[in-house]
C-alpha cells in the first residue's frame, strides 16, 4: 500500500492503495465517484473512459501508481463549471436534447470520449466523430443520436 495524490475534477485526492489497483476501482470505491461504469473490464467497451491529463483512457487498464500527480476528469466533473449556472455541460445538454442515451451504461464513457474530441478542437465531422468514439460500445446501438449530439456542440465544418 502506498499513498497516491492526484487531482480529480479539479480537487486534490489522496488514496491509500496498492499501486496496481485500477483507477476505475479507486474512482468508484475509494472516492465514491460511481458515474464511471465498468463494462468489460478489459479495454474493449470504453464504458469506464475518463480523461487523464486530457487524454481519454480506459480506467480499467490504468494502475493507480501511474496516476500519481496527474489530472483526472470523470463524468461528474463535466458539469462543474456549468453547475453554478444550474445547468449541465453543453455536451450533456446535447445528449438530452437528442435522446442520445437509452440504457445509459455507455453514456458516461461516451461523454468523456466526446469531451476529449471536442477539447482537442474536433469539428462536426461525422467520420471524425465516429472515429473519436470508436472505442465506446453502445449495446443499445443508438450511435446515430450520439453522433448527432456531439456534432451539435462541435465547431461547425468550414
Amino acid at each position: 500500500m502506498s499513498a497516491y495524490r492526484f487531482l480529480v475534477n479539479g480537487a486534490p485526492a489522496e488514496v491509500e492503495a496498492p499501486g496496481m489497483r485500477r483507477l476505475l476501482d479507486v474512482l468508484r470505491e475509494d472516492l465514491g465517484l460511481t458515474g464511471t461504469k465498468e463494462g468489460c473490464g478489459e479495454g474493449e467497451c470504453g464504458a469506464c473512459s475518463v480523461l487523464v491529463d486530457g487524454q481519454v483512457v480506459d480506467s480499467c487498464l490504468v494502475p493507480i501508481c501511474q496516476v500519481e500527480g496527474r489530472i483526472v476528469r470523470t463524468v461528474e466533473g463535466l458539469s462543474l463549471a456549468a453547475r453554478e449556472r444550474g445547468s449541465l455541460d453543453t455536451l450533456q445538454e446535447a445528449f438530452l436534447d437528442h435522446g442520445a442515451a437509452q440504457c445509459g451504461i455507455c453514456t458516461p464513457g461516451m461523454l468523456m470520449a466526446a469531451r476529449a474530441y471536442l477539447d482537442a478542437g474536433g469539428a462536426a465531422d461525422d467520420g471524425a466523430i465516429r472515429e473519436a468514439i470508436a472505442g465506446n460500445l453502445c449495446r443499445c446501438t443508438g450511435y446515430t443520436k450520439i453522433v448527432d449530439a456531439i456534432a451539435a456542440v462541435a465547431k461547425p465544418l468550414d
Partner: protein
Amino acid sequence: MPAEPPIDTPKHLFEAYELLASGPTRPIAGGTDVMVAITGELGPIPERMLDLSRIEELRGISLEADGLVLGARTTYTEIRRSALCREHLPALVEAAGTIGAAQIQNRGTLGGNIANASPAGDTLPILLAADARILVGGQRGEREIKALDYFVAYRKTALEPDELILHVRFPLPGGRQLRFRKVGTRRAQAISKVVVALGWQDGPRGWSDVRVALGSVAATPIRAAGTEAVLEGARPTPEVADRAAETLAGELQPIDDVRSTADYRRAVSARVLHRLLRDAGGW
C-alpha cells in the same frame, strides 16, 4: 479483475535494471495488454511488477543517421501525431491508427506491442518488413536484436527476463517503400484476422530486398520467403501479382481459431498482397 501485486515505479533505467536483475519482475507500460493478462485466468500472477511510466529514457522519436528511432514507450497516438513518423514511416502511422481506438492508442506502446509478442500484434509485421532492430538492455549491457530474430516461438521472444526493450530503430534506405494492410472484424477495436506488410526497393532491374511479412497467420509474425523470392527482381505486373498471391496462399499454414479460419486467412492474405501489388503497379 487484475491482481494487485506489489509494484515499483523507478525514475531511471539503472534502477529498473536492478529490479529486473533481483528476481522475476513483470514490466508494465501502457497496461493495455498487461492489465488484462494478470487476472490469474491466463497464467500465474506475477510476484511483482515494474512500472515503466516514469522512465524518460524510454521516450522520444528521433531521426538519426542510421534510421528513425522510436523509444519503447512511444504510444500509438504519439506515432500518429509525429511529423517524423508521418514523413518517414507512414505505414507505421497507418498501423497505429488501426489499433484499438483512442483509449488504447493513448496508452498502448510500441515497446509493449513487441514485448507482448502476440502473433496478432499489429505493428510487428512492419518491423519485419522494415528490417527493424530492437535495442534491449539490462545490467549485463545492451544488445541489438534483428526483428526477424526476436520472435522465437508462440509468445516466446529473444528478450531475457532481466532485459528491457529500450528502443526500435527503423533503417531508412533511400527509395524504400513500405505498405500495410490490416483485416479485422471491424475498423476499430478489432484484433486482426490478417495483417500484411510489404517492403521493397525499386531499381532499374526491378524490385529488390522484397519483404512480405504477415501477422495472425502463424505462431509468430512471419516472413513469407517463397513469396519474397517470386517478387525479388520482378516488377508488380498482373502476372507477377497472380503468381505471388498463389505462392503466398501455398506457403501459409494458418490455423482455425475464434477469430477466423485457416481458409479465410490464407485466401485473404493472398488477396491483400495482390491488392497491394496492384496499387504498387498502378493498374
